[in-house]
Structures are given as structure tokens and as C-alpha cells.
């Protein structure tokens, strides 16, 4: 069985994601320099012992900015994820429990949301409601919601016809109790895996929005903004783009590996095959 590979992706993914989280948390209490401190004399410094990853065109320490950027990116993505799951999971569970017109309404609503290109609509929302991290969270979250709604409904529909649900009905449980006690715990694995994948997508979306100036606002550093600022120096100082680019790729890779590993770990069919 291919178990070692699953284990590798799980542990590597968990290590990368954990490291990113640790860096983001560390930036709350310590960064090598204040991430917004301008030091025009040492502008565009090369990586050295003083400035580990060098400085940007106005002399801000890149390592410090990346650390603070991790905090902002993860926070926006996390809240967006909470918005998406918080809306999508209850709607999907409701659709599966009630069926009929409620189901139709929720699913056609999801179809409608799916029909719009997510990032473009996020741009529109940010443009209408004004740029900023808060609106970015809302926009990204709104587009994760239908994903969660569909997934929850589909997985829940697989649980409802099972005998222990009927047994719970004969014991006098209503739809709400059965959903909370029996349906959701049985599909938690699928939802957790989807959450890690959506988390990665949310990080990318946040970087994209910040890149076009609709996400995290200056002076708060963010990976997407750093990429945008590096554009004009792409030939003279490519490291300005490479470091935030690496940070984004590495985080997304870590989360995807984690999701992959978790899926294999939580999938009962694979577990039985071992």
C-alpha cells in the first residue's frame, strides 16, 4: 500500500502549515525590524546578517514584512474560510435535511454563485464596498460558501438514508438534533479536508486582491502587495518578487499537502484497505 507517501504528504504539509502559522504568531510579538520602518539609507540592501532577506526600495526589512504579511494573509484567509463554512455548511445541511423546495432554493442559489468568476466578483465587491481587508474577507468567504453548501449537502445525503438515522428518528429525534448529532460528525472528515483546500484558495485570493490593491491596505504589509510593489524592480532586484512569491507558493503547497494527507487519513475506504 502507498501508505508511506500519504504519511509524507501529511507530515510535510502539517510541518509547512505549522511553520507558517508559527511565523505569523511570532510576528505579533517579534520581528527583526518593525515591518513598516523606513530606512532610506539602506534601501535595496542585499540579503545579509543585518537584513536576512535584504530591504525593499524604501529600506523596509523584507524578512519582517514577510512575517507580518503571513499574519495578515492567514488572518484574512481564516476569517474568509469561517464566513464560507459558516454560511455553506448550515445551508447544505439544511438542504439535505429538508429536501424539497428548500433544497432546490439552496442548490440553485449555489449554482448562481458558481456561475460568476469568483475573483472577478470579489474585485467587484471590493470596488463597490471599498477596498480593505474586511471586504476582501467577505468577498472570498461568500464564494467559498457554495462550495461548502454543495459538499455538505452531498455528503449529508449519503448519511440520511442510513439505518442509524432511522433509528434516531424512531427514538424521537427531530431534524436538527439528527443533523448535529449524527450527520455532521459523520461527514466531518470530508469537511475538514475541504477546509484546508479552501484555506489555500483563500490565501491565493487574498494575495490576488492585495496585488490589485483591493485587499490589505498599506501600510499593513501583505504578500500580494509586496509582489505588486516588486514589479518595477523585477529586473534590477528580482529577489523582491521571489521572496513573497515563495512565501505564497510554500503556504499553498503546505496546505494542499496537508489536505491530501488528511483526506487519505480520514477516508474510511482507504483506511480499511490498509
Amino acid at each position, binding site marked *: 500500500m502507498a501508505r508511506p507517501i500519504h504519511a509524507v504528504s501529511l507530515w510535510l504539509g502539517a510541518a509547512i502549515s505549522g511553520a507558517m502559522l508559527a511565523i505569523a504568531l511570532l510576528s505579533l510579538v517579534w520581528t527583526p525590524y518593525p515591518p513598516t520602518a523606513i530606512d532610506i539609507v539602506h534601501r535595496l540592501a542585499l540579503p545579509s546578517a543585518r537584513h536576512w532577506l535584504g530591504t525593499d526600495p524604501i529600506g523596509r526589512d523584507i524578512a519582517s514584512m514577510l512575517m507580518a504579511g503571513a499574519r495578515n494573509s492567514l488572518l484574512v484567509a481564516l476569517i474568509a474560510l469561517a464566513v464560507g463554512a459558516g454560511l455553506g455548511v448550515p445551508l447544505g445541511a439544511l438542504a439535505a435535511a429538508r*429536501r*424539497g423546495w428548500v433544497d432546490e432554493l439552496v442548490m440553485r442559489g449555489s449554482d448562481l454563485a458558481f456561475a460568476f468568476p469568483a475573483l472577478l466578483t470579489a474585485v467587484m465587491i471590493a470596488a463597490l464596498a471599498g477596498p480593505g481587508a474586511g471586504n476582501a474577507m467577505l468577498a472570498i468567504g461568500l464564494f467559498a460558501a457554495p462550495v461548502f453548501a454543495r459538499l455538505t449537502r452531498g455528503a449529508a445525503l449519503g448519511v440520511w438514508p*442510513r*439505518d*442509524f438515522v*432511522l*433509528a*434516531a*428518528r*424512531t*427514538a*424521537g*429525534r*427531530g431534524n436538527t*438534533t439528527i443533523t448535529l*448529532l*449524527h450527520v455532521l*460528525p*459523520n461527514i466531518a472528515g470530508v469537511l475538514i479536508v475541504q477546509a484546508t483546500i479552501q484555506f489555500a484558495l483563500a490565501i491565493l485570493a487574498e494575495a490576488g486582491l492585495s496585488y490589485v490593491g483591493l485587499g490589505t491596505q498599506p501600510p499593513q504589509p501583505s504578500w500580494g502587495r509586496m509582489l505588486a510593489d516588486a514589479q518595477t524592480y523585477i529586473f534590477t532586484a528580482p529577489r523582491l518578487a521571489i521572496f513573497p512569491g515563495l512565501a505564497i507558493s510554500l503556504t499553498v503547497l503546505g496546505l494542499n499537502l496537508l489536505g491530501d494527507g488528511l483526506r487519505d487519513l480520514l477516508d474510511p475506504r482507504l483506511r480499511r484497505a490498509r
Partner: protein
Amino acid sequence: MSALLELDDLSVRLPAAGPVPLLDRVSLSLERGESLGVVGESGCGKSMAALAIMGLLPPGAVVSGGLRFDGQDLLAAPEAAWCALRGRRIGMVFQEPMTALNPIQRIGAQLAEGPRRHLRLGRGAAESEVLRLLDRVGLARISPDRYPHQLSGGQRQRVMIAMALACGPDLLLADEPTTALDMTIQGQILALLAELAAERRMALLLITHDLGVVARHAARTLVMYAGRVVETGPTPAVFARMAHPYTHGLFAASPHAIMAGGRRRLPTIQGQVPEPRARPPGCCFAPRCAAAAEDCRQSPPMLAPLDAGHLAACYHPRAAA
């Protein structure tokens, strides 16, 4: 005094499955402390009857006739009234103990659900109640912290019974409670059910296709075929006469019948239960019945009394032995 459970010409129609009723004018009554065995082949409406009593028919089902529990008209009852009855006053045991328990919940938590919800017990009281229940169904040495997959089939069925009994119901529906279990365990489970029913003066509705089970564990027998009651009465009377040819055919086709007769091929009833939409105009059993005559194919026979409390729906009932 009126009966605990009364079905009065109860019919169930599923428009999605065609115009023919899946349950056709089924009447039965059950007193406290009484046991009734419902027998029949697969697809003859036994489980449908149980779901109707539980109010858990598939959406869209059209029900007519009367259904009363302890004097309460259930067909007019709102969903909230059903929820208060299910689990509290009517318990149900399922055929498949493997799938009727939530695989990711400890058995103690599943057992405690009923008492906590219906009897409003606190956490501690519920915990000791769980231990008492496990002890009562013979699982005193099984920890409530176990998961269903850590138990054997028989143990799981005992857990199911404990769950059904948790709130001290007045009526217990057991839908093929032993079909998924091996022979040695079957006897134990049925004996436990009978014992608990006697101890709590609980009415027991035992649904099965095994005539042997009914003969040993039910005071009264009701034979169903194609959604209708074809014969009903006190178990000894039904088994002594087997007035309906279907009852006789069922008995002849069960291994119990030939145990005494030495080795020979197990007889079968030719053909199968007609699909609801393909039921013949006359007696539904006529196409498979050796004794069928012209009148059987014209119109369906009604239940008619043979002797004290013993009824059969047949134009040509077998004579008393």
C-alpha cells in the same frame, strides 16, 4: 378498555409507486403486555406497517383508515406529538444492528440520548441509567465507552434493544430483530425481548418471516400477504389449522416443518409476491395457490371469522385438522 395500539382498516398509498396501496385495509389491535407476531415474505408490507405505526412513512405517502395509540388518534397528530411518542412510548428495534448504530459515537452516548431527551435526566443520572440498561440486556461487562465496531453482532443487537427500552416504552416494535444474527444468538435475543416485555407489561409487535420465531414467542399471529392481512388469530389456533393456503405454504417451506420428517427437499411456494402495481383483481395469492378456484380470481376475499378470534381471508379455508 380500549387497546393500546389499534389499526383500523389502515391503508397506505405511495402515489410515486403507483395507485395500488402498499398496505390495504390492515386492522389489528394490541393490548398492554400482549405479543403479536407479524409474518410474511419480503415485500408483503410488514415493515411498511411498522413505519406507519412510527409515523415514518416516506414523504408523499397517503394514509387512510384509523391509527390510535393509547386512545390518541395518531393520523391527526402533529409532528411534535410523534416526536414525543417515538422513543418515549414506542420503541423500535431494527433488523441490522451493524448499521443501525452510529459508527462514530460511543454506545454509552447513543444509549443516553433517549433518557436525556425524553426523561430530562442530567449527565450523571443518564450515565448510571446507561449502566443499568447495559446490565439489563446482559452487557454488564461492556464499557459504555466502546464504539459499535468493537462489539459483536449479538452485542450490538442487545445495545439496540437497550436503546429501544431506554425510556420504558409501552410498545416495542421489533422489525426482524434476529435476521442478521446466527441461530444460537437468535434464541437468546428473542428470549430477552419476551422477558423484558413480560417484566414491563410492554406490548411487543414482532415482525419476522420466520414462523418458528412467531410460534415460540408471540401469543397472537398475523399473516400478511401483498399488503393485506390474510390470516390472524391466537398463535396455537393459527398453527393448528393454518386455514389460509399461504400460511400453510409458509409453514411447509420452513425448515422447522421437515425436521421431524427426515431428509427431503425443502418445498417452496411457487412464484413470488406480485408487485403492488401488478396485483390480480381477485385474491392476490390465487396465482400461486393450488386450491384456487374461479371465485378466487373474481374478487378479493374479505377476512371472515373461522372460530374464536381466528380470521382468514380465503374462500376455501383449509379444514381444521
